[in-house]
């Protein structure tokens, strides 16, 4: 009896000690922002990761505090703040069809009790790979029925449709319906697959520079055409100097020191840096760098981690793809900064999924070749960047220009986001809807015609007819 007691006491003590130690280590692990904290914290953090995060967050999953905060771990409001920190602006820009205020309104209390959509994590639970499907949604796919189960009363055309098809058929999205609302569908009905003019908008670099004017460091870069590099002796080969001379940088008075002389830390005098990072580029290319940090290529940098490497990607990458962290120069190439190279070769240096590998043989690539050969007007070619980093209007209260959206995810998911800024520059809405809804066509990089048909435009036209008949009847009644 006494012996058992002593052994049990020892075991209890051991159990208690180990628990305390691991709790402490876990706590320590969570506190650290760095993605590879020293052991034991780093090891325990990996061990305690409750399950792989989705493709949207896997790159930063080891920086727990980015989403969980550093104090009240997993408190609903802390997590909500973290979500909005990165995603609020894009939701606002998308005219979110289900804004938070809809669910905090007491008149919707009964609905909110069924689905608390005032919090992102109600529908997008992380660390649950087994139940995560498209768009990182973790609810059953028919979740629309929670509030819209009576839709057939309002829209007889919808009677009998499965609620798992609302968002998967090319008709609706939960947040972004800018290219899917009825009046948009009817307005763009009846156009040919290929529009008469087929070019994407030009970049508007001149306006960007003008808008930059107030903050542009003109004293450092007086506007003049440079012919001589001011690099210290021994820096940069003849090729590097030739490359630079051909760029807008040399034309606009941005010399070697413009990018290479950077203060090593805040307040310190500038010193030569061999590899300036994205913060240097953002001195003049603010919007480009900002959006780069918002996308898959820059999100680790944005979270204060080391840069993303192709090896960390979940989608197929070339096995010889470089292991170096991605920065501006990875795609643009230092000194030459060739936007044409960045727009296709930059991507294909790493990406090796079906869609990427099929690009070279696609009709879009053929157009890009013909544009490069001067056979087609500027903006007629379609590169990877045309669709995945499109030229978009950047608009604030006092700024309005076309610039390249460097967040490759902005038009990617859900794919209907690509309709307005990309596809519809050259194709009809119907053709674009069908093409985006056809997975085989995506794999072949849009070689051929869509084999899928999205009926939403026809339905919208039919509904418009119904409304017109009602209007006429009402007018007749009014006249009598």
């Amino acid at each position, binding site marked *: 009896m006494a012996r058992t007691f002593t052994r049990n006491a020892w075991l209890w003590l051991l159990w208690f000690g180990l628990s305390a130690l691991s709790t402490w280590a876990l706590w320590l692990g969570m506190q650290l922002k760095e993605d590879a904290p020293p052991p034991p914290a780093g090891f325990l953090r990996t061990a305690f990761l409750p399950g792989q995060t989705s493709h949207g967050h896997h790159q930063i999953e080891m920086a727990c505090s980015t989403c969980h905060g550093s104090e009240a771990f997993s408190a609903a409001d802390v997590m909500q703040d973290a979500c909005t920190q990165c995603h609020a602006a894009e939701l606002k820009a998308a005219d979110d069809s289900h804004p*938070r205020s809809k669910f*905090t*309104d007491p*008149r919707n209390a*009964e609905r909110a009790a069924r689905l608390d959509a005032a919090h992102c994590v109600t529908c997008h639970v992380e660390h649950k790979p087994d139940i995560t499907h498209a768009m990182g949604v973790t609810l059953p796919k028919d979740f629309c029925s929670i509030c819209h189960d009576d839709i057939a009363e309002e829209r007889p055309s919808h009677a009998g449709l499965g609620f798992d098809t609302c968002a998967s058929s090319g008709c609706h999205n939960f947040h972004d319906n800018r290219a899917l*609302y009825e*009046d948009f569908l009817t307005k763009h009905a009846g156009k040919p697959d290929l529009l008469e003019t087929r070019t994407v908008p030009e970049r508007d670099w001149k306006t960007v520079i003008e808008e930059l004017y107030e903050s542009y460091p003109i004293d450092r870069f007086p506007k003049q055409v440079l012919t001589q590099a001011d690099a210290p002796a021994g820096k940069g080969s003849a090729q590097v100097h030739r490359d630079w001379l051909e760029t807008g940088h040399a034309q606009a008075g941005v010399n070697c020191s413009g990018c290479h002389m950077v203060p090593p830390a805040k307040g310190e005098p500038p010193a030569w840096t061999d590899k300036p990072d994205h913060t240097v580029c953002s001195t003049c290319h603010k919007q480009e760098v900002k959006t780069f940090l918002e996308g898959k290529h820059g999100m680790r940098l944005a979270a204060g981690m080391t840069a993303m490497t192709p090896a960390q990607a979940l989608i197929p990458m070339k096995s010889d793809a470089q292991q170096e962290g991605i920065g501006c120069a990875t795609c643009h190439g230092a000194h030459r900064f060739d936007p044409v190279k960045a727009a296709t070769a930059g991507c294909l240096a790493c990406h090796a999924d079906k869609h990427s590998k099929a690009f070279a043989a696609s009709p879009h690539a053929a157009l890009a070749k013909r544009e490069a050969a001067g056979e087609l007007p500027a903006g007629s070619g379609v590169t990877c960047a045309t669709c995945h980093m499109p030229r978009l209007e950047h608009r604030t209260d006092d700024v309005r220009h076309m610039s390249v959206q460097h967040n490759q995810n902005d038009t990617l998911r859900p794919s209907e986001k690509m309709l307005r800024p990309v596809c519809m520059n050259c194709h009809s809405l119907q053709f674009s809807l069908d093409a985006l809804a056809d997975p085989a066509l995506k794999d072949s990089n849009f070689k051929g015609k869509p084999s899928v048909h999205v009926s939403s435009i026809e339905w919208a036209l039919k509904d418009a007819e119904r409304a017109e008949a009602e209007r006429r009847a009402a007018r007749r009644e009014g006249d009598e």
Partner: protein
Amino acid sequence: MKVIPVLALGSAVAFSASTASAQDATASWSYKDIADALHLIMESDRTVYTRLIVNRLQNEDKVIKASEHWKDDKALVLPAQMFRYGSEMVAEKGAAFTYSLLSEWPINKQNAAKTDVEKAGLAEVGKTGKPYYKEETLGGKKYFTAVYPDKAIAKACVSCHNDHKDTPRRDFKMGDVMGGVVLRLPMK
């Protein structure tokens, strides 16, 4: 009528010694008074926007249209959107009270009455043209709910609604009650 303690007590303590009249004035603000005051502002702003902006520029001078898709159509926002965007901004700022524009004949089905008080209130203001007040409990919380008639005060209201694709009613006339503003104050 019950008195809102927040406003009343706060100001009462602050001004107790010096301004007795201010204390009396705030202390007598009932839920109904506060709801009426808030609604008066909303109704006036709504009338100004509809008459001076939408009706004048769209229906009289015909220089610009109002459209649900004002961003795409480069048009004026609808009076109902003007109202809703304001109410959403109020919600985003964390205000305790909420308000919305509803109707028994809604263009947007989400603007149909949902709670029992909304249903009774809309029916009542449609009949009497006068406000309707009731306490209700939603999501376990108690609210003072006021419903105010929303009337067709300009031709623009009538023509747009009667002509709209999704309207369930096409015979509105000037002066008709087209719906109601529902305003909720949380009760202590």
